[in-house]
């Protein structure tokens, strides 16, 4: 069912990326010399100790922030030097975010939260409704469409966030410690949801601390002090074994 990645062009292609933060008199080199290719349908985990630059890398992939140096192609198009509005438009179409703290908008109910990216895409209301309902069904939140975030459990909130990330059919889903604020049972549920989506063909890039979840991904990138130090590829069969274990 899945295509061989070698025959495809990468979704993400980063060459020699460097990122430093400055301000308040502090200079931090958060990332340097990053070369990264991610292919369609891949499930990648970014691992490493706290402060090594995982979130920073994810924010660069997601165009929340721009790199200080280096080239970045998303779906074959150069996105290294876009202005804010162009980046917004690309984020909207190509990228789905899942945050550790869910980042749902408190004043909007589940349906409206999930609908939001489509509103920004100017999708007609009727189509929006169909797509939102479909994606909520996929994450098992059809029953809670009219609820507000405060009326949901953490796991339900995160599932809503996953639905919101999926609704635009993005090229890649970025998840920064999606289980960080959840207890292990809820965390497991989210991880299996991501796994299911991966099974359905989604490209996912995950940051996690929790070694238990590293093995869900078929590819692990290890960061240390802002550099990629190693990479493990897990065979699909092993991955499935681990999961059932």
């Amino acid at each position, binding site marked *: 069912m899945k295509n061989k990645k070698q025959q495809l062009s990468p979704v993400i292609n980063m060459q020699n990326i460097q990122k430093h933060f400055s301000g308040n008199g502090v200079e931090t080199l958060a990332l340097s010399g990053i070369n990264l290719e991610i292919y369609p349908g891949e499930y990648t985990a970014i691992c490493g100790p706290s402060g090594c630059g995982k*979130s*920073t890398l994810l*924010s660069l992939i*997601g165009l*929340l*922030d721009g790199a200080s140096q280096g080239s970045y192609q998303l779906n074959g198009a150069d996105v290294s030097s876009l202005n*804010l*509005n162009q980046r*917004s*438009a*690309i*984020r*909207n*179409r190509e*990228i789905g*975010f899942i*945050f550790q*703290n869910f*980042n*749902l*908008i*408190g*004043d*909007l109910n589940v349906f409206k939260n999930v609908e*939001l*990216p489509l*509103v*920004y*895409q*100017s999708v*007609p*209301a009727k189509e929006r409704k169909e797509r939102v309902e479909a994606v909520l069904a996929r994450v098992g939140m059809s029953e809670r469409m009219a609820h507000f975030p405060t009326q949901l459990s953490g796991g339900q909130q995160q599932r809503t966030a996953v639905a*919101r990330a999926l609704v*635009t059919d993005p090229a890649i889903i970025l998840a920064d410690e999606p289980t960080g604020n959840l207890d292990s049972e809820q965390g497991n549920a989210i991880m299996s949801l991501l796994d299911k989506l991966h099974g359905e063909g989604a490209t996912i890039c995950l940051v996690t601390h929790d070694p238990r979840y590293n093995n869900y991904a078929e590819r692990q990138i290890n960061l240390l002090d802002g550099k990629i130090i190693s990479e493990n590829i897990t065979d699909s069969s092993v991955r499935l074994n681990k999961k059932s274990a």
Partner: protein
Amino acid sequence: MIDSLWQDIQYGFVQITRRFKLSLAIIFCIALGIGPNTTLFSMFNSLLLNEPAVMAPEQLVSIHKYRPGKEGLPTFTYPDLVDFNDQVSQLEGILGFSYQSASVSMPEGPEMLPVEMATSNFFDLLGVQPLYGETFHRQTSQAPGSMPVVVLSYSFWQQRFAEDKSVVGRKIKLNGSDMTIIGVMPADFTGALGAFGSKMWLPMVMMNIIDPDSPARLISRNDNWIIPVARLAKNATLESVNQEMATIDSKLQAQYPETNEGNTHRAVPYSNIPFIPETARSMVVFGASLVVGLILLVACSSVAALLLSRATERRQEISVRLALGAPRYRVVRQLMIENLMLALVASVVGFIFSLWAVVVFKQSLPAEIPFQLSLDPSLDANMLLYTLGAAFLSSLLFGLVPALQATKTDLFSALKEQPQAGGTQVQSSKLRSFFLITQFSLSVFLLVIAGLTIKGLHNSVNINPGFDATNLLTFKTDLSLYGYLDDEKTAYSQRLNHELASLAGVESVVISRTPPMSGDKTATLVSSFNEAMEAGEETRTFYSIITPGYFATIGAKLLRGREFTLDDQSYLSPKVIINQAMAKTLFVGTDAMGKYLSVPSSDDAFEIIAIAENIANSSIGSMDEPYMYIPLGQRFDHGLVYVVRTEQDPALLIDNVKAKIAELNPDIALNMIETMTDTVSRSLFSLRALAIATSGLGLLALLLATIGTYGVVSYSVKLRQHEIGVRLSLGAQPRALVFMLMSSGLKLIIIGCVLGLGLSFVAGELLSPMLSGVGPRDPLVFILVPLFMLSLSCLAIYFPARKTSRVDPMLALRYE
């Protein structure tokens, strides 16, 4: 597009109702800021912008008369008007009118009411039809008194005749003469100038019942008393009219060089309020707009500061939207729609506020104005546009900067934050400081202006006017209007004088042409005679005509000499009393007593028999003007004022005085019967109105600034709750924390005060000449205002700071 706008509106509605307290505070502030603006505009609107309800008002033009070295004014002499109207072909015609007042018979007795004298072409040229009956038209006979008819205004008809349709053909008494009511005008017709209406219109030829001097006025080319309005002829333009008017002017100048030399008439665009010179009008409009504009600015910066604080709280929401791919303009638009919705509600509230304010303003107008001011704020197209414009402008003023600021966040860090967690840096503090400083400096500025005006008012009230204003009653009657001849007038006055003096509670009665503080002034030129009876240089002086016992009755002092006696009333040896100021200017270094004065209109030499102390003859500000008093018999005039000294409260005698006069002649209406204390307070009307307006606006600004400060401090303190919890858990003293939280706010307030005082120095220079005894840097005002400001704003900062510093540290930390 429509769909997405609708989404924004819906979301705005959610936000507004969710943050109900904040929304209310914003609406309240903006409504208070917009209110004075809509009030002022609705007044301008009904005074300046409303077109009169006549046929094709766009064809109307005003005509200004230019005299050498003077600004053009819409005045005409009657003969000039007739000549122009006959000769000009580029105009359909020129109509003229004049505001007068007349004693009108009313069910409760005669009453002085504003009436409008109009040329016979008035209604035809305006192209208006009566509601009932007919109007008067151009007539061949121009003989004075030949058209004893009136046309009633709708409001007068309503008020006096209770909308009785059979009133046409009935008679009504004006100044004792019977006039036939020939018609009633529709409700929206107020005359040729929108807001300045009348109770009724009379043909110009009936001027004789209004003004005994009218025969002379109707032929004088010197007496400019008619307001002209003209209608353009077909295809005529202002230029073509003015070309033609210039030729007519030169003809008239050649024909009447003595009166018309140098005078020109020019058609100018129609104005609703032509008799106030352009420069004065624009100054008033500018000054008033500036002050109310400042209020709106204070309100907006208050709200802007609030929104900047709020934006910090909303950072997460906005970042999520941006992360999901909303273009920045969409988010800005969404925030602005929310702001616009708030501003719209606020401007509706402000408009309601202004309806109320205009009613209050109308009630506080002095009763005696010679026209009927129709100041009825209504939501017409102008008003609607203005209100919408004000809402739009203020939402831009208070919302745009915070919205731009809020959408400029660093997404990466904003999204990492835990909602509600502490550690959020209080953002955009520079901008917020700017807004806080702005509102404080403007408030100080407005309060200082208010303080200076109040002090000026206070001084004026407490200046000794040089006479005793308590227990004095004055009223005016004009016997000439009721057909009395000169001898009869004297007889009547003497009889009235006698009857009044014998009323219980009356001490004495005198007559004066212009009693103290009346605001009226009559000037003449005089010169002193030297020993050789050679007249010296002429100087301008003011004068009044009085009867014996005047100074004793009003309680003023004669420094030298004596009062007039009945003997002084004869023409044989004219006598005069002058005031100190005149003695000083006319008789430098010599004793004025017993010297003689020459008065241009008289061949006689007037002997000075007394020197009176300076008193406030026309107003408080006129104390030091040269003034002279002439006995009544020597210069008889019409329109005299009776001054009655009473034993007790003079207001109690008003009914008795009215009854006495009705006994003598039931047609005579008393003009302006009032106690001297009321006269004095009326003379301070404009100063008092200014004091009330500026202090009201100043306090409003202060209130707004205080709300703004309180809101901003509450928000930023709330955002620092986590930090404060940490500090408290580490053992910080709550008192020290209060001080820490207050100090940054206080710094801004002090900067604002200093800037405001700087602005006020400039305003002080401009204001102090208008205020008696107030220096431009009045120390009391300049110290009290900032002190007051500081203490109030300390409270506004103190309460939120204290509340936070008392919080349970565990509670503050638990947010993590």
